[in-house]
């Protein structure tokens, strides 16, 4: 993936920046330039806000067949998270055993490495989620 393509999205991937409609107050993640509820009335009125960073698991899967970039991480957990702000997003779950994960589990965002452009390329960072109120296991 070209560097600018990732760089453009860093505000939302690093800091969970979302958009809030200036007309109806609805929050969207990733940010949108048009509110799906207000359409034209929202254009130019979308504000940038930061999500609170925690939510709970709506559904999840343990991935065993992974694309090349994720080969070293498998098996890993991917989940759809319902954020406290009302939006949903898809993210990996870390610092959590397969047997401890469940629908409804409370999780919080954590800033992590997402991937790398080849062996010597640029490293991409962004959010992953971990169970709330737990410290990562000691190495």
């Amino acid at each position, binding site marked *: 993936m070209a560097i600018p393509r990732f760089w453009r999205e860093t505000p939302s991937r690093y800091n969970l920046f979302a958009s809030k409609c200036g007309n109806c107050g609805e929050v969207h993640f990733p940010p949108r330039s048009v509110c799906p509820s207000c359409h034209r009335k929202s254009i130019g009125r979308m504000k940038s806000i930061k999500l609170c960073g925690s939510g709970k698991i709506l*559904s999840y899967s*343990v*991935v065993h067949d992974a694309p090349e970039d994720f*080969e070293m991480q498998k098996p890993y957990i*991917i989940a759809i998270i319902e954020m406290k702000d009302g939006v949903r997003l898809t993210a990996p779950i870390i610092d959590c055993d397969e047997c401890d994960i469940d629908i409804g589990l409370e999780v919080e965002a954590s800033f992590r490495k997402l991937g790398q452009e080849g062996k010597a390329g640029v490293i991409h960072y962004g959010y992953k989620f971990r169970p709330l109120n737990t410290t990562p296991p000691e190495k």
Partner: protein
Amino acid sequence: MRDVAIIGIGETEFGELWNKSFREIGIEAGFKAIEDAGITSQQIDALYIGNMSAGKFIEQEHVAPLVADYSGLADMHLPAVRVEAAGASGGVALATGYMAVASGMYNIVIVGGAEKMTDVGDTQALQILSATADQEWESVFGATFPSLYAMMARRHMHVYGTTRENLAAVAVKNHRNGSLNPNAQYRREISMEMVLNAPPVATPLGMFDCAPLSDGGAAVVLCPMDRAKKFTDTPIQILGSGIATDTLALHNRRDICTMDATVIAGKRALHQAKRTPKDVKVAEVHDNFTIAEIMAVEDLRFFEKGKGGAATEEGLTALNGEVSVNTSGGLKARGQPVGATGVAQAIEIVRQLRGEADKRQVDDATTGLIHNVGGTGATAVVHILERGD
């Protein structure tokens, strides 16, 4: 708007076709359809080809003129258009061809679909399929295509009590149907135990919950209903055609256990056809994963929401059940050459309505339905077919 009929069908074998190139696959399907319709190439007015990702699978874009060219039609300078809607490419190509004939713009239209998936490795193919999800907000984080359907399955199990066995019953049934289809990629029955004990792909889905990677092509010939009798004694009329779309990313859907695009496309097609779900006797639905068929039979309103899994395990969707679903073997057993799927589904329903489905013939096949999905449900397209004689 004019009534439209399918007057010819043709398909290649589905599977790992090492000795056939993309262009050979496209031509073979097209010529079989032309022969079945009893038309000559010179009568063709336009060509629509469903293809998802030739650019990534064989590094070839611009495939519609390619197929027209190698079919020997370059001198006719035909309008030839590629249609892309991920897994729904074939179905949307059919809808596009239908509109072209219904509008009066063209009389004889070929709708084809083709995909050549085995010229890349399995891992790369998985990555290409995952590109039909949201690349920036799903795939980048490691969500694979199977894992997105797995999350629908997990939630469906959580909310409606759908069981692992319910899911497995879809694969068992479709392999049983596939064993009766000489064109299917897998013509062997499998047991419930085999499905349950297969290696995991993305939990709760295992290997036998997923449709395979395939090469293959399919084509149908369309013409106005009032001319169809000149070509065939058994024209099959397209009574309804509905396309619907939804958010690209699964997490943005209203409900991840319902494909709203399927619900709406189904309602649109049935409304136009003046039919109800109860009228449908035979259906080809999009079972790229076992959970997808369970959600489809619910969202198309054959069964109440949440009851699709139990209905499948009870045999209500088996051959000559309440509604015979995926008599061809579905994507699971017939194979899933992505762009060809929607057209291959139409071919199976045409065979059923003509009474040419041999060992898998449904007894009272009067009204048929085709349901084709793109991505995780960002596109759905539904057609209703009946005999027009």
